[in-house]
């Protein structure tokens, strides 16, 4: 059995049966079609919970602090007198 035969057998197994596809077709065409009005009324979306945000300067602050620590870490430790 070739790979193409195997794939064809798999495709036949997963394909939506015609009877089921026909049921879906009939269900869809039974759905009323929305009529376009003179002015489209915007549909409000679901209310979204407020997400806490970082301060706009956070990246600058973070990278400045990080750079300062890196520079400090490369300096020799001062010996106590």
């Amino acid at each position, binding site marked *: 059995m070739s*790979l193409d035969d*195997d794939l064809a057998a*798999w495709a036949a197994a*997963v*394909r*939506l049966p015609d009877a089921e*596809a026909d049921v879906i*077709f009939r269900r869809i065409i039974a759905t009323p079609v929305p009529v376009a009005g003179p002015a489209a009324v915007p549909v409000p979306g679901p209310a979204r919970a407020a997400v806490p945000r970082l301060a706009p300067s956070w990246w600058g602050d973070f990278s400045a602090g990080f750079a300062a620590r890196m520079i400090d870490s490369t300096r020799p430790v001062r010996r106590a007198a």
Partner: protein
Amino acid sequence: MDREAEFRRLYQAHRAAVHAYFTGRTGGHPSAADLMQDVFLRVWQHLDELADLSEDRQRAWIFTVARNLAVDACRLPHTRAATEQALAREPARTPPPVSTAVLAAERAAVVGEAIRRLPEQQRVTLALAAAGELNSSEIAAALGVPAGTVRYRLSLARRSLAEALGHYDDQEEER
């Protein structure tokens, strides 16, 4: 325009490919049929806009809706959990073969499992080619990627499948 006739034409032309797309995206989950229905419900609702487009643009429109729905569906916890569960499922242990029918069923299970384990992009591309019966250019238009990428993904997917079936055939010979 005869809405029902026009819709039937689009439905017959694209339903197999759209279902194949969702089969690939969900790893063969039954929700593929529900997602396909959602896509064609939108086609039905926007039929007036679609009727004026060329066939290629119609396919692109339909698959844009399909891709968006797939993204939304993957965000739903139950869908994602079901998909991950389906993908993580261990291959079923099958009893020793007793007939040709059992051998064929066992081989089909090996193929199905190997396809489920493919990376998603390869699985979707392969599903569109095998179950959706689209060629490389049509798949490229549907997924919004170059045709060369489609051919590359198909080649990788087929190689993985050939390896999986090779292992299976070796085990069969040892039995």
